[in-house]
């Protein structure tokens, strides 16, 4: 399995790693059981994402997609950010190996989760008490992987 140069660059020199103490929205997706968790912090002013940071527990692809996602959302409006798909993140990285495509879902979901959190805090949506920590989607995705053995 080979990662593109861009993936390796974002893995080795991840952009926007860290936390934002007074973030306006925080989203965490994935779960440790699947081996991947991504947490995204957003600073939002007048509907525009002015700052973003992330923390990720995961493979090289998970770190690189997190990093790329933060670059993609920075300076965008909330509505623009919500339109970013996992495919767009993967394409911006010059692609991911097929077995790693699911890692980019994490990035798309983290953006959505962080924005949902922002809206909830603002009272823009109702707090339905739904957990946004783990969608369990990662498990489905892992189950669809082929059963390659070493």
């Amino acid at each position, binding site marked *: *399995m080979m990662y593109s140069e861009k993936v390796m660059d974002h893995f080795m020199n991840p952009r926007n790693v860290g936390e934002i103490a007074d973030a306006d929205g925080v989203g965490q997706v994935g779960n440790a059981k699947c081996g991947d968790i991504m947490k995204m912090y957003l600073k939002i002013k007048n509907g525009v994402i002015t700052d973003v940071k992330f*923390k990720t*527990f995961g493979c090289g692809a*998970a770190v690189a997609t997190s990093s790329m996602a933060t670059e993609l959302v920075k300076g965008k409006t909330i509505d623009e950010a919500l339109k970013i798909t996992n495919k767009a993140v993967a394409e911006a990285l010059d692609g991911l190996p097929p077995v790693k495509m699911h890692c980019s879902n994490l990035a798309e979901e983290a953006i959505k989760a962080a924005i949902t959190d922002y809206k909830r805090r603002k009272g823009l949506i109702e707090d339905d008490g739904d957990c946004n920590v783990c969608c369990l989607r990662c498990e489905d995705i*892992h189950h669809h992987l082929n059963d*390659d*053995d070493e």
Partner: protein
Amino acid sequence: MSARSIYFDHAATTHVKREVLEAMLPYFSENYGNPSTVYTIGRTSKKAIEEARETVARIIGAEPREIFFTGSGTEADNWAVKGAAYANMKKGKHIITTSIEHHAVLHACQYLESEGFEVTYLPVDEYGLVTPGQVEAAIRPDTILISIMFANNEIGTIQPIAEIGRIAREKGICFHTDAVQAMGNIKINVSELNVDMLSMSAHKFYGPKGVGALYVRKGVKLTSFMHGGAQERGRRASTENVPGIIGLAKALELADMNMEQHNRKLVALRDRTIEEIEKKIPFVRLNGHREKRLPGNVNFSFEFIEGESLLLMLDLKGIAASSGSACTSGSLDPSHVLLAIGLPHEKAHGSLRITFGDENTDEDVDYLMEVLPEIVRRLREMSPLYEGIRSSKE
């Protein structure tokens, strides 16, 4: 990218030693004869194979006619497990193995389950050990085979094979051991150990890939693996991999000769690495047993980080190692071995296996200890799992 290049993955495979390669070379070119023929160059090949068989037999305390060359360790395992199951199915259809076997045994057993056999997968303790008592308690009147690995490829745990062998012998049940990782690291005598079948693979002890051997004690019932010509006494048909077989025997001979020195050196590197990792890096867990452990095996879980990231960063520093993380294999779950010893998923994902070999030095460990703590620190800084831990320390 990196000036250094250090190989710490000898459990995955080893390089072919120069003496081994030199012993093999003539059998690719001038001595290319088919061993089954009557003319001179064919007889040369035949003679070389029979000498290789004698060498392997002598080293493990067997008779030459009890050694069968195979195409790999996986093949030897498959043959032993399925061959014994089918040959004895009139007596019973129950097999005993462990939950930490290599997939070559595990998946062969799962296949047999689909064929109507029943398999007991013995659990292991936190060190990866099974006890002879567990094996004894699992034996039923219809048990026909016990297959328990000698030493584990991931965590290096060495099983009490002689004791299990004694029980199997008392009960008259065929006992197979996958000694792929043990061979070349542990002195093995099949008579003293009471094993009936034993698998080995040349590329784990500085021989070539794609050649292995199965020891089959005289009298053990086993179906043929390949049907065809009369090679390997008709039980494993196909023109022999002559250079491979010569390489396997030469490599085993060298390993046997160097065993003491090899072990002393690897144990020193291993114990030093374990000690320094435990001293220099917080939140780590040694996987496997401290003493009942392969000489070159180090396996740690680093909490809060994921194994593939760790491997990639080590690779960028020129270090080749391995992990039990699911992310490195593209499969569903992290290592079945780490889960079997009771690790939660996230700790199993954060594992690192370092396996030393003959060419490694103390300087290699110096370098590892120079880069590893920093890599772990960096990944933890990036990990959302580490946040609470860090702030609670602050």
